């Protein structure tokens, strides 16, 4: 543990810490452009120069390991001069176009030029100009502004795992580009926008729509997948202008997927902003009173066992609980959350969460994926697996369809019956489990939604019991695809026979009315024969056969509780108001309960949350990784031979908001190579 002196203060740091990191530990600010905590060290911007005693010249602190007895000065005249010199060099070719640059106001170069620059340049020659590069529909480029820190190049190679970016030519002619100016083939590409310390790479959809100082930042949580990435929703007036990641080391570090980042335009399109009632086979606009009245009439004389409910993938726990309570008041307990038909049960919490946690994969030394494609189902988690594979010696094996996960995976075919052999301790996979100290097994929805899903779950549970559950380590995990799912399972929203039984009963006429809370991922045509009450945000699959539509609030428009795939309870904040007549979902259900004569016993969010805490005790602890006791779950059965189908067809189209988003449509086209040529007018 080296001890060094920085500006007169002694600090002891871990071996391998750099001088810059040591400075940060005691709160000494060192300016930098190329250095980034999560990327390899490059040392090419030279902005972090500091003085080291006994060194004839200033040192680049980001690349210098802290050594015993070093004496560092960051506030000498020589350091000031060195920083001014580097800044002057950086600005030689950087255009002074801050007033027309989207990065203006949140630009590292701008800030550091103000804080550490001379304020004037001695260079009067012409600046160089670089042609802009096409990098797809998400990233706008102004390459003249590039200062060649290489953060984007290192990110794409090291974090995203797609070797597509590079720097061509040399010296003054250096240019950053993607290979042949193709769209970056990654679900994480938008992160280069945050990484770029200047305005060279900016957000194309956000371009020239707002200035950073006009925006209000609302801390919230993403619901595009079950990771629950922490986000900042940037709002101007009543519109979400953009979404950026928020640091949470345990969940998303500081990355978010492109779907999380760019889905916001879907919040404004195809929205349900008023109630509708189906009259004479067509949906007609209605007032809230008319809609509630219509529901009251439809439910008249309907018995409790003739009513069912289906909740969707982005529902918050408050709404789900309100619906559950309303259903109970109507005499029904038939409320189902597993839209994809996953054969999960709720008896043991450890049986439906990722017990080791998302960050736990960094501790693991062996990981078996069963029917899960984390790159499409949870890209942020996939980058963490990649990090563990690259730096921490994790080995990954896969039983399921072989996909490019951006790291090395040992494929064992897509036949789930292999698990039985593993359980018997036979074969290469069983040997890997035996050899590993902290093995993990992750079961995906692709495996669980099969007919024999419960048997696969049981087999995975038994494998975990045999190899992965030890003192202080539970390597069993389920990777969910829906943000609402774990919360729904905590609320016990599962029914006998699952969604298939509900749809079959609806077709057979055994059901009279079905409540649908933002569920659009099943075959809604099967509900044509029953009275369907749809509460949701978008004119998507769910409304086609709806008889009454009640406009709800999207995740940015309400404060809701969500539980991510590792069982972590997180809460979103209301960033904007829902459009038009739309209301927060739980208030709709509360108002409807009044009309139906079964008033729900909560008048505000606090009262509802108090009730939530009694039903789902986990929600008392926000942002904690809760240990769940191990138990028995799944159903013993025969695992049939045959392939496991992927759970996610198209990463960019997994929910109604994403399907309404034009940006998502653009990026799908661009990645498929089906895009018009870049022209001079491309942003």
């Amino acid at each position: 543990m080296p001890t060094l002196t920085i500006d007169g203060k002694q600090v002891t740091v871990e071996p391998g810490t750099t001088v810059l990191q040591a400075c940060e530990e005691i709160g000494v600010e060192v300016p930098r452009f190329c250095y980034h905590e999560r990327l390899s060290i490059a040392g090419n911007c030279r902005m972090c120069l500091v003085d080291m005693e006994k060194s004839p010249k200033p040192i680049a602190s980001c690349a210098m390991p802290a050594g015993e007895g070093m004496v560092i000065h960051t506030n000498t005249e020589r350091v000031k001069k060195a920083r001014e010199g580097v800044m002057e060099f950086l600005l030689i070719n950087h255009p002074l176009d801050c007033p027309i640059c989207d990065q203006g106001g949140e630009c590292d170069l701008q800030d550091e030029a103000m804080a550490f620059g001379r304020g004037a340049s001695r260079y009067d020659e012409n600046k160089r100009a670089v042609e802009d590069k096409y990098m797809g529909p998400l990233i706008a480029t102004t390459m003249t502004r590039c200062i060649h820190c290489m953060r984007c190049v290192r990110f794409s190679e090291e974090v995203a795992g797609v070797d597509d970016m590079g720097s061509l030519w040399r010296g003054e002619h250096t240019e950053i580009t993607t290979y042949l100016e193709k769209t970056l083939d990654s679900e994480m590409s938008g992160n280069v926008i945050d990484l770029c310390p200047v305005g060279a790479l900016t957000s194309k959809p956000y371009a020239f729509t707002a200035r950073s100082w006009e925006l209000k930042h609302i801390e919230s949580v993403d619901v595009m997948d079950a990771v629950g990435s922490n986000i900042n929703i940037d709002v101007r007036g009543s519109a979400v202008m953009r979404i950026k990641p928020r640091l949470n080391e345990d969940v998303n570090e500081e990355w978010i997927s492109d779907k999380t980042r760019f889905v916001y335009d879907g919040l404004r399109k195809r929205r349900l902003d008023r109630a509708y009632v189906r009259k004479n086979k067509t949906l007609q606009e209605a007032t809230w009173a008319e809609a509630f009245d219509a529901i009251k009439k439809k439910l008249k004389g309907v018995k409790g066992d003739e009513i069912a409910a289906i909740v969707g993938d982005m529902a918050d726990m408050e709404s789900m609980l309100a619906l559950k309570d309303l259903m109970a008041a109507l005499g029904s307990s038939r409320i189902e959350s597993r839209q994809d038909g996953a054969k999960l049960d709720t008896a043991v919490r450890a049986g439906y969460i990722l017990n080791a946690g998302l960050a736990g994969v960094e501790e693991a030394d062996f990981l078996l994926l069963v029917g899960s494609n984390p790159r499409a189902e949870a890209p942020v988690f996939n980058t963490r697996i990649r990090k563990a594979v690259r730096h921490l010696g994790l080995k990954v094996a896969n039983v399921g369809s072989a996909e490019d996960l951006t790291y090395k995976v040992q494929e064992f075919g897509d036949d789930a019956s292999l698990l039985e052999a593993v359980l018997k301790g036979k074969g290469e996979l069983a040997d890997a489990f035996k050899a590993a100290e902290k093995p993990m097994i992750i079961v995906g929805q692709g495996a669980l939604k099969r007919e024999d899903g419960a048997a696969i779950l049981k087999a995975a549970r038994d494998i975990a019991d045999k190899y992965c559950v030890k003192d202080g380590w539970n390597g069993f995990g389920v990777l969910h695809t829906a943000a609402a799912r774990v919360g729904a399972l905590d609320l016990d929203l599962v029914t006998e026979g699952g969604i298939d039984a509900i749809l079959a009963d609806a077709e057979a006429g055994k059901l009279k009315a079905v409540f649908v809370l933002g569920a659009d991922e099943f075959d809604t045509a099967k509900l044509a024969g029953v009275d369907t009450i749809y509460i949701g945000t978008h004119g998507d699959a769910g409304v086609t056969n709806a008889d009454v539509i009640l406009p709800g609030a999207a995740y940015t428009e309400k404060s809701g509780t969500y539980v991510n795939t590792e069982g972590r309870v997180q809460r979103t904040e209301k960033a904007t108001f829902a459009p038009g007549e739309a209301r927060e979902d739980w208030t709709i259900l509360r108002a409807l309960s009044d009309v139906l004569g079964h008033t729900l016993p909560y008048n505000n969010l606090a009262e509802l949350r108090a009730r939530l805490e009694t039903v789902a005790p986990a929600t008392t602890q926000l942002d904690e990784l809760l240990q769940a006791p191990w138990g028995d779950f799944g159903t013993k059965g025969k695992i049939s031979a045959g392939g496991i189908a992927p759970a996610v067809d198209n990463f960019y189209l997994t929910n109604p908001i994403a399907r309404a988003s034009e940006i998502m449509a653009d990026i799908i086209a661009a990645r498929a190579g089906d895009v018009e040529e870049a022209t001079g007018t491309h942003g």
Partner: protein
Amino acid sequence: MTAAAQEAFAWTPENEATAQKHIAKYPAGRQQSAVMPLLDLAQRQNGGHVTQEIIEYIADYLDMAPIKVMEVATFYTMYNHKPIGKHHVQVCGTTPCWLRGAEDVMHACKKHLGIEKGQTTADGMFTLNEVECAGACVNAPVVAIDDDYFEDLTPETVVELLNKLAKGEAVKPGPQGVNRKNSAPEGGPTTLKDFMGEDA
């Protein structure tokens, strides 16, 4: 472009063997280290320049991302990205050569060949370029033609050299028109005469 050039690039059997020899110099799994000699080999096979197709071929051959090969191929000036003439005349223009008359040498080349820097003669025999320090300052001014250095040049000797090359006559690399061996003093060694005497 000739019909032959349009065919997909692939190693000739001899070059394939050479390429494998280069790869064998590095530990297993580090075959990417051979990217530079392989690019050079491919450039020679292709008649003096590399193409996008070659970059992708080598990327595939060494199991690298094409962008990484492209980074290398664009970083080093010895890889040409456009077709060049039969002889690549590279005049050093850095300070020691410049002090010793590199500008006159360059001017003579331009005048004799009738082309500017970066151009190729109409008959496809010569491409003329200025390069940064060739590292032979003691024999300045220096011109590198293809794989050889021609040193101690004057406008006259360089034109003579170009004439010989145009006619396909043999030329002798090293100092031109000066009585010295390599970088030894003019007129023979001034010290270690006995030592040098044997084969001087």
